[in-house]
């Protein structure tokens, strides 16, 4: 038997056809995980755990196929540049940044990096959320927190609904922002919200974070 056997197409078709009869939709948390996994934002072991679940969860498998197709299109987008090289995965860059800070000597990378410059945004990843994705936050203490950027940075934060209705926009000079409770008036408990942080370096350069998800209590 070799791979790409003609019977493989039948197996693929049969497996994928189960999406038509999935008993229920993916949860917002799972949709978030799928998107992050297909954009290489999840660590490898978490990706594998998600793939393991896909084997018997047809809704998850279908969400993955949609995400993979859209991510492929995103990678072909000339405005964002080519698909990120493997070394540019955020969690790998966080480790690399830690090595630079600790040793400041030779760092093994698959691609050459620009010379260090304290005034320009480094090739490292943007900030990451300190709140687990999908967390339920109290509406009277809706505090978003993220990993700090460099000294002197400021942060532009946007919170939207899934339909991209703006809930709040704020600028902060600390890696934390409290969203007023009245912004959630009328929202049912558990409403999912997207948020994103754009770090503004002292040089004026901007770097947007990944999109994170929380829910309002």
């Amino acid at each position, binding site marked *: 038997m070799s791979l790409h056997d003609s019977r493989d197409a039948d197996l*693929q078709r049969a497996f994928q056809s189960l999406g038509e009869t999935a008993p229920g939709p993916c949860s917002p948390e799972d949709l978030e995980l799928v998107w992050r996994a297909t954009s290489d934002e999840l660590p490898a072991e978490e990706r594998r755990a998600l793939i393991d679940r896909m084997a018997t969860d047809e809704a998850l498998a279908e969400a993955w196929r949609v995400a993979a197709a859209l991510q492929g299109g995103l990678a072909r987008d000339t405005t964002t540049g080519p698909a990120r090289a493997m070394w540019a995965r955020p969690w790998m860059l966080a480790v690399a940044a830690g090595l630079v800070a600790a040793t400041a000597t030779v760092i093994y990378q698959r691609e050459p990096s620009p010379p260090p410059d304290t005034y320009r945004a480094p090739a490292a990843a943007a900030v990451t959320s300190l709140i687990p994705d999908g967390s339920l936050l109290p509406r009277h203490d809706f505090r978003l927190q993220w990993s700090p950027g460099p000294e002197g940075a400021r942060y532009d934060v946007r919170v939207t609904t899934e339909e991209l209705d703006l809930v709040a926009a704020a600028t902060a000079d600390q890696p934390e922002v409290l969203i007023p409770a009245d912004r959630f008036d009328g929202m049912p408990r558990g409403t999912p919200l997207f948020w*994103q942080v754009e770090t503004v370096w002292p040089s004026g350069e901007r770097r947007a974070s990944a999109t994170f998800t929380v829910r309002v209590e």
Partner: protein
Amino acid sequence: MPFDFTKLRQDLARAVQRVCPTWDAVRRDDLVQAAAMRVMQAVERAPARDGEGQTRFATSYLYKVAHSVLIDEVRTLRRRREDELPPDVAATVAGAVHGPERVAASREVGRAIQACLTRLLRDRRLAVTLYLQGHTVPDAARRLDWSAKRTENLVYRGLADLRDCLSSKGIRP
């Protein structure tokens, strides 16, 4: 730079083709149109950062929104089809393109595949699942963070295990 909705529609069309290959072109186009409209309306409602009408949203952010919108639209259209057609007619429609027996047999095989996957060794199951999802071996290797050679071996052995298991159930796809 303004968001490229034409490209988004093309990418949505590719995604719909992957998820709903048995749907006719008209239904797939309706789905793409509905999803694209929802993303477009959301962008148009959002205020611009600098008042010049340029979208503030990164492309990746909008594609993520498109992902959840498309999933939602697919389920809505499927539910609508189930609600609007009597079961026997729905089955006839489903089988019209691919034959009712073939549709039912394909799903039976799909269920058997799921059952057999649970019996594979974990690493083989991961590799085979991605292969069944349509990923090439190199792409699966990248996503699993394993070497290409190891992944190829896992897919090869995993598919052999899978076919043995299906045969034991009387299924030979």
